[in-house]
């Protein structure tokens, strides 16, 4: 079955097996020259959508829907969007979105800053009591959370139990706008413009659930052409700097910086932090944390995409170009602090930041349906491996010989699919 994160057009698929090779959880096989998915293993990283040369595998969420006239259309902007337009100020991007028909375009950077403060508080508090399992793992990247639930359940306790900024903001906005405009909460449609392939599709891992706070996701790459056009007009308009009174938090450089790998931790006070990006690197680090390494670290920012969210599958501009744009922002404006610490502390003490679900409760919500391998299976696999003695050619439709051997033993593949075994 095709996972919900992906849209797959079978007639375009040529069976080239590029997606099979890049999939970090080995979810895809080629059968009869077409890709076949074991959907329960898909973590929504989007690696397959990047490599497909035929456009057969693409992201399922980036459908642009017209703004509805009888509803209040609100859009929460991922700061990665600003990095797509070099030389355009973030506030102008928000104006451009207004011009496109959104009633409110809302910047996230204020909430990102709050989140960073809350992480500081959490770490400092637990440093004193030495309660937390070190290192703590950032809850931001949804792909990493799914990866942990699926493959590293030991590390669930390491996930920081705070809600993501988007879900905090979405919650607040719906509350405030329905109050101010006197509209029913159901009549407010919250869109989220995102570079992330895994966002918003019902989150099987449930943690910090954005669903309910966000109604629709729009991929940056889909909104880019229209917005680019509008921005040309905005340049000539010279509107006021603050387009809408509500939630017109002026975008700060914290936002664009957040999209880069290392941007989340850059705004924190704590020092013993690392930023890791890329899904392979993330897996290698998670394995090491399971072996007890990095326990002297306090917080690890994981991003499944190389270079962080700027390298998300749904971006419009190359990640290194986008990074250059962000670096320009920072050179111009620096990284400011705007929030009074004691106010965040008050919110923190009220429990406002904490997620309603403990990360440890996620164990098993999301796991492989395959049968566990027995000792005999393991022996058979060893024997097959020595018979095949292959070079991971992939002609059988599996990503490598070992996976093929496992498939044969669990009766998911025919031994004759291997050309060495045909003789």
């Amino acid at each position: 079955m095709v996972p919900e994160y992906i849209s797959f057009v079978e007639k375009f698929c040529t069976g080239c097996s590029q997606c099979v090779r890049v999939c970090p959880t080995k979810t895809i096989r080629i059968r009869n020259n077409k890709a076949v998915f074991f959907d329960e293993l898909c973590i929504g990283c989007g690696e397959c959508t990047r490599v497909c040369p035929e456009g057969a595998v693409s992201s399922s969420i980036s459908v642009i829907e017209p703004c509805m006239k009888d509803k209040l259309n609100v859009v929460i902007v991922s700061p990665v969007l600003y990095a797509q337009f070099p030389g355009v100020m973030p506030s102008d991007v928000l104006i451009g979105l207004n011009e496109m028909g959104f009633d409110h375009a809302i910047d996230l950077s204020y909430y990102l800053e709050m989140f960073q403060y809350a992480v500081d508080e959490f770490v400092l508090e637990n440093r004193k009591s030495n309660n937390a399992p070190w290192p703590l793992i950032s809850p931001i990247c949804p792909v990493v959370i799914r990866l942990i639930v699926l493959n590293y359940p030991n590390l669930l306790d390491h996930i920081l139990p705070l809600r993501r900024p988007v879900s905090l903001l979405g919650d607040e906005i719906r509350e405030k706008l329905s109050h101010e405009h006197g509209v029913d909460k159901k009549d407010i449609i919250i869109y989220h413009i995102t570079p992330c392939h895994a966002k918003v599709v019902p989150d099987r891992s449930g943690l910090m659930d954005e669903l309910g706070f966000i109604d629709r996701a729009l991929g940056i790459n889909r909104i880019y052409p229209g917005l680019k056009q509008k921005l040309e007009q905005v340049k000539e308009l010279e509107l006021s700097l603050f387009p809408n009174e509500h939630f017109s938090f002026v975008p700060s450089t914290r936002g664009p910086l957040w999209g880069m790998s290392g941007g989340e931790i850059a705004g924190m006070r704590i020092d013993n932090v690392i930023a890791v990006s890329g899904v392979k690197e993330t897996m290698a680090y998670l394995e090491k944390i399971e072996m007890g390494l990095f326990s002297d670290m306090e917080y690890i920012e994981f991003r499944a995409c190389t270079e962080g969210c700027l390298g998300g599958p749904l971006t419009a501009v190359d990640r290194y170009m986008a990074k250059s744009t962000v670096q320009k922002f920072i050179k111009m404006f620096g990284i400011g602090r705007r929030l009074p610490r004691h106010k965040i502390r008050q919110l923190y003490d009220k429990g406002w930041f904490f997620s309603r679900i403990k990360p440890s409760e996620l164990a098993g919500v999301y796991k492989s349906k395959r049968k566990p391998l027995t000792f005999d299976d393991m022996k058979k696999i060893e024997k097959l491996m020595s018979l095949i003695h292959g070079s991971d050619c992939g002609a059988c439709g599996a990503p490598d010989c070992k996976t093929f051997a496992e498939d044969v033993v669990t009766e998911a593949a025919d031994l004759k699919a291997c050309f060495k075994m045909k003789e």
Partner: protein
Amino acid sequence: MSSLKKSFNVRCRDFIHAGEASISVQQLLKQMHIDPVLIRRIAICGYEGEMNVVMHGGDGIYCVEINTDRIVLDISDKGPGIADIAKAMEKGFSTASDEYREMGFGAGMGLPNMKKNADEMIVESEPGCGTRVRMSFIIKQSTPT
């Protein structure tokens, strides 16, 4: 009774590949749906043992034997051996060089940590004849059939 044996070579001072044996074993056990907490204990012990070989032991062999009721890690090397095993088991005792300390190792926690995480541990060593550490882990009821 069926059992599964696997062995890996561990090379002295090969920090780049250190930990690979432990990771392979970890992945193997995960596929067999062994209790994650047990896997973690085995991974910690395996990694500490592997690092001991890489740092002190010269070349060595990392063997794992998986039975239905227990898993045995057997890590042996041809290194200088341990003169006083009781002393080596003390927390904070280390013979690691300054070089290793600068790399963040040599806190004297390796063997004590292994002892803590293993159900049984036997250290055999004689100066000049190498060291052999055997650790067993008992698999509780949720054994795969």
